[in-house]
């Protein structure tokens, strides 16, 4: 690598963010030249994929590369940390973003693209990348804002009555969420004396040495969980999801469901399993259902209830919706429940191998959901472009008129349901495996987890096959009769459908990466050592 132009070492960590930021600025500056603008946008995204690949090559299987901003040592400066977990999430974002940007160029109308579509999109990607890479909790807040600001604009992009109403709800909710996040971060700084995640983990592990009272930290961490649950759309913070996903342009819904939601999941894994897991309460909580003194013993049951509620609210909601976008939006609430469930199950167990398995399950399921759900939202956009409607009552017979669109939907659907050898099969298998092993180990409540996951899986089959039989099978409806064939859009979804198959068929490297990521998430000491917060003497 030494003789290439590619950046190496610590500088590689900031490469994905820099690429996205430069692309955003370049597309902002070239708005007057539509073809150049779109070319730069796609090119920038390709370079982004390359940057993520280079970073992944440097980090995997189990290295941690840190970048100290302006060479200020941790914990005084802002640290950016790329470990296997961050790289796994970045790879997921890179994969989805490339499909989304190509789809956008063909899907969004000229005027929309000329205004500010591409710069906003890349600013959003910058925010997502920053959130995955930062090792500083206040900096995480800033990246969240960078990610949210363009998403507000995208929800109101079409500017109709429905879109403005959805955007108002989405914006107000997230602004209140941001204020809550500030409150939690300020409190964490006051109680632990640091904003650096590694430093915070180190201090929480030795609370007496640093004069930390654990109970307030637990409360503030719980406030922070509300913010992450809001971002990830976990029940009871899910109600903004369907209107926002319906209002945003199809490729943006794909990005929001596929990538932005996973930022919330990533933050839960990183902060609660790497950082806050270091904390222990002075005495056990005197509440029914909570045993043990570790912080995770508190968050485990909380996440458990939220995950199960998500699975059922999403599943039942999706089974009664009248158009494709709403089905997929409710479905993504349910699927996030499946991602959180293994995390909740392993939060309260002590067996390290089982903990790794639970996080692997969450990560594999995240990847599967990111690809399959983005694919389904893009299919919905393609159907809209081709047929002119996504109301299930006006669709029908797409299989005969548009076999490629129908085939892509079918693969995405099987991916979500979890039919072998598609990617979803392994996600579901790992979730069940986690719950089953926890049950065998005697962890409380895991029987309920198994039953819930099984019920959720059946619901998934029910609502997706309902959408399939109403929209794609059956008599050819008049609208479908006159459908056109948007070649580029169909091409993108066909390729993405093949990716769903490829991830399932070539699952070994995916599993190895997810396992490395899970081990990185649980290796607190490795994380602290890599960031290397200086020991500040109290004297």
């Amino acid at each position: 690598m030494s003789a290439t132009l590619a950046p190496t070492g610590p500088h590689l960590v900031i490469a994905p963010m820099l690429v996205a930021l430069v692309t955003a600025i370049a597309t902002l500056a070239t708005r007057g030249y539509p073809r150049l603008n779109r070319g730069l946008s796609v090119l920038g995204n390709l370079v982004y994929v390359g940057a993520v690949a280079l970073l992944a090559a440097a980090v995997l299987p189990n290295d941690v590369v840190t970048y100290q901003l302006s060479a200020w040592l941790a914990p005084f400066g802002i640290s950016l940390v790329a470990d296997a977990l961050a790289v796994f999430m970045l790879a997921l974002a890179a994969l989805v973003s490339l499909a989304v940007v190509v789809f956008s160029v063909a899907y969004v109308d000229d005027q929309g693209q000329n205004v500010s579509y591409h710069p906003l999109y890349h600013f959003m990607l910058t925010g997502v990348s920053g959130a995955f890479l930062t090792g500083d909790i206040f900096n995480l807040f800033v990246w969240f804002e960078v990610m949210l600001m363009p998403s507000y604009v995208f929800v109101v992009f079409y500017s109709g009555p429905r879109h403005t109403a959805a955007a108002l709800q989405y914006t107000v909710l997230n602004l209140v969420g941001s204020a809550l996040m500030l409150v939690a971060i300020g409190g964490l700084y006051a109680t632990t004396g640091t904003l650096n995640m590694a430093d915070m983990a180190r201090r929480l592990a030795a609370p007496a040495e640093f004069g930390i009272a654990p109970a307030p930290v637990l409360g503030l961490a719980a406030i922070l969980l509300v913010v992450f649950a809001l971002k990830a759309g976990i029940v009871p913070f899910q109600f903004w999801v369907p209107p926002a996903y319906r209002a945003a342009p199809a490729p943006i819904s794909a990005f929001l469901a596929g990538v932005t939601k996973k930022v919330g999941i990533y933050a839960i894994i990183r902060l609660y399993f790497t950082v806050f897991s270091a904390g222990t309460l002075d005495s056990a909580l005197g509440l029914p259902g909570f045993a043990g003194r570790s912080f995770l013993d508190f968050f485990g049951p909380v996440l458990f209830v939220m995950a199960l509620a998500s699975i059922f609210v999403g599943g039942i909601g999706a089974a009664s919706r009248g158009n494709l976008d709403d089905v997929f939006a409710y479905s993504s609430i349910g699927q996030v429940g499946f991602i959180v469930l293994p995390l909740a199950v392993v939060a309260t167990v002590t067996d390290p191998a089982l903990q790794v398995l639970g996080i692997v399950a969450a990560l594999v399921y995240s990847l599967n959901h990111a690809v399959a759900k983005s694919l389904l939202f893009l299919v919905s956009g393609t159907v809209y472009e081709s047929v002119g409607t996504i109301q299930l009552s006006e669709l029908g017979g797409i299989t005969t008129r548009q076999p490629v669109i129908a085939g892509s939907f079918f693969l995405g659907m099987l991916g979500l349901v979890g039919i072998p050898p598609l990617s979803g099969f392994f996600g579901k298998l790992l979730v069940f495996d986690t719950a089953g092993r926890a049950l065998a180990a005697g962890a409380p409540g895991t029987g309920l987890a198994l039953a819930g996951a099984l019920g959720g899986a059946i619901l998934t089959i029910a609502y997706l096959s309902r959408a399939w039989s109403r929209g794609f099978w059956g008599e050819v409806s008049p609208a479908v009769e006159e459908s056109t064939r948007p070649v580029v859009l169909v091409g993108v979804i066909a390729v993405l459908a093949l990716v769903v198959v490829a991830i399932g068929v070539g699952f070994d490297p995916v599993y190895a990466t997810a396992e490395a990521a899970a081990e990185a998430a649980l290796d607190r000491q490795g994380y602290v050592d890599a960031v290397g917060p200086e020991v500040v003497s109290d004297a």
Partner: protein
Amino acid sequence: MTQVILALVLGLLFALGTYLVLREDVVRVVWGVTIISQSANVYLVTMGGLRGRAPILGHGSEHPVACSVPNAGANCVTDPLVQALVLTAIVIGFGTTAFALVLTYRVYEEHGTIDLGEVRAE
């Protein structure tokens, strides 16, 4: 004493913001969100502690110690970090408030009203 007054004022501000967010008028909701985020900023300043002198480092003088560090001594300075954080948060808040106000105007244009009881998604 200052701590008690500030805590009371912050509590009142958060309560006022929450009350406004729950109103039916979009402009009041935006005001409410603005007040909540500004209260969060004031709260953030108090998190650095209220004691100590201004954190200015003179030429050749000793390194000042922030009062939030345990056993900082009598000659400590206020923690400057929270003020840096608040500056960042204020800038972000400025941008989001501007966007929320423009959005309010667009809601009014599309729906002909800013009464949330009549602004329906469909």
